[in-house]
């Protein structure tokens, strides 16, 4: 971590200016940290009253005012698993190709990379429009968990590719040279040498992807739909947790208490996922330093 201490040697008015600016910067940091804690405490205070094991497993009743979020959690899990099942093979294949198999400056490589870079910036509501037009209507999946999951898979690709590619690129070149010198083929090198080293980075990317997917709302409004029953098949509509929070707070009068509890569940889940991902990234960076 860069911590560059420079001795103050300026004139007195410079000293004063430096102190004032330092104070301002500390104030900004305090402010941001304070707001973060404020959000967390607000959610914990509002949500902890209703949160219980029973709330997690029972079905929502009376459009969500009473009961729990059992079916919502099941739908969320289904949408997530479909998204990952589809996005992981495609994303990781792309990452391996970009990092190991084609030159960084090749035209195919830069086309794929540019396309993914643009995809990463597409607003989630536009993904929602696309998923609705393509999966729900053109492919005839209707409002279903399947079409929601596939829409999410498109959203996840850029983050999966970029984390996995960075993980592979961080493996020192000497590993590849040694593997080639030992007479290993490219595929063998990938599976036996590069992947074992890059695993923490890939896992961190996977977790970040899960976090991104679980947080998504706008892309699922017109694809996986609003129905809060327990889904019976993948072609059923299923309401995900984030959408449940939105619906309760905007469309259901008196839905604030369960909305608070659902928001608390979602945020605890995401904080956990993100903390583990950060830990993995940290681990990987340390390992990278050790191998260099």
């Amino acid at each position, binding site marked *: *971590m*860069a*911590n*560059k201490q*420079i001795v*103050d040697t*300026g004139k007195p008015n*410079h*000293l004063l200016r*430096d102190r004032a600016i*330092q104070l301002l*910067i*500390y104030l*900004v940091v305090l402010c*941001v*940290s304070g707001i*973060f804690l404020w959000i967390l405490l607000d*959610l914990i205070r*509002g949500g902890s009253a209703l949160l219980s094991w029973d709330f997690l497993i029972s079905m929502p009743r009376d459009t969500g005012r009473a009961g729990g979020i059992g079916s919502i959690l099941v739908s969320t899990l289904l949408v997530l698993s479909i998204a990952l099942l589809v996005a992981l*093979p495609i994303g990781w*294949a792309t990452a*391996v*190709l970009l990092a190991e198999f084609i030159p960084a400056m090749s035209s*195919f490589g830069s086309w*794929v990379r540019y*396309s993914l870079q*643009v*995809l*990463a*910036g*597409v*607003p989630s*509501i536009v*993904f929602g*429009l*696309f998923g609705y*037009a393509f999966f729900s209507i*053109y492919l005839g999946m209707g409002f279903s968990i399947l079409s929601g999951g596939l829409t999410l898979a*498109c959203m996840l*690709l850029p983050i999966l*590719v970029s984390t996995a590619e960075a993980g592979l690129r961080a493996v020192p070149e000497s590993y590849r040279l040694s593997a*080639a010198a030992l007479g*290993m*083929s490219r*595929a*063998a090198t990938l599976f036996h040498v590069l992947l074992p080293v890059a695993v923490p980075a890939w896992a961190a990317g996977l977790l970040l992807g899960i*976090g991104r997917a679980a*947080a998504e*709302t*706008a892309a699922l*409004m017109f694809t996986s739909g609003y129905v809060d029953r327990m889904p019976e098949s993948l072609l059923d509509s299923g309401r995900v947790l*984030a959408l449940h*929070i*939105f619906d309760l*707070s905007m469309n259901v009068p008196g839905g604030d208490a369960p909305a608070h509890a659902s*928001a608390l569940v979602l*945020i605890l889940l*995401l904080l956990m*996922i993100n903390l583990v991902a*950060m830990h993995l990234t940290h681990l990987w960076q340390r390992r990278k330093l050790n191998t260099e």
Partner: protein
Amino acid sequence: MIWWKCSILFQSVSIDRWFNAGLRLGATVAALIMALILLFLLLESWPALQHIPLMRFVTDDAWHPLEDRYNLLPMVTGTLYASSGSLLLVIPLGIASALFMAFYASPRMSMLYRRLIELLAGIPSVVFGFWGLTTVVPLINQWQPPGASLLTAILILTLMILPTLVLTSYAALIAVPDEYLRSAAALGLSRWGMIYGVVLPAARQGIVAGILLAAGRAVGETMAVLMVAGNVVQHADSLFAPIRTLTANIALEMAYAMGDHRAVLFVSGLLLLLLVMILTTMAGWFGKEHHGE
């Protein structure tokens, strides 16, 4: 580097070729998704583009889609006001935070603050919206009713795009070569003198790229704005007036839109996509030049 075609670990000679083909297939699918998105937005908005002259999106007297009046302008100004307002707030906050991490904090504090910013980035937009709706809106309502307004949208958006700017500008700041810092110190510059005179100019392109990325996020944000901005179709005349953004408009009306109305919503989606594409492409240029240094 010369790779062996066969090895004891994978006996088949052609495995590399098959493997390569499989990877190429995956990458092609990944790259085609963007083209597919563009294609389907164009296809769906085609009916509207075909028989509604483009000028009508700005000259119609109001947004009454059910009576065939499609003036998108209030939503466009809503989006522009909200995102430029939040950019004005986030630029000083974000750069100050990045400077704190790079030059003012101890390594431990810096790491801690970085974690906090990363966690802030992980909070879903619907939770930001919910928090805004239950906490910020009532607060502003006591001061200037109705509370759900441009100001609330700006505040919530600022929190949401802050991590993007902080993390990118931090990366740009620590990429400034150490020699610059040492030379500045040797010249007797004070800490702020060094930051203002040496570090910020050297990291300018990376920071601008971060600002553009943050702008892209602000323009594309839907749920949080939908929940706190009040959603009245009008040109905002003050900070306390409720507004509706392009994204919120799509989210609100898509559920019941038919025919031309639906096509016009797809047109606004296309507009959003183009706007964000321009911003991210520009950010890409700046980022590349910055790395090229």
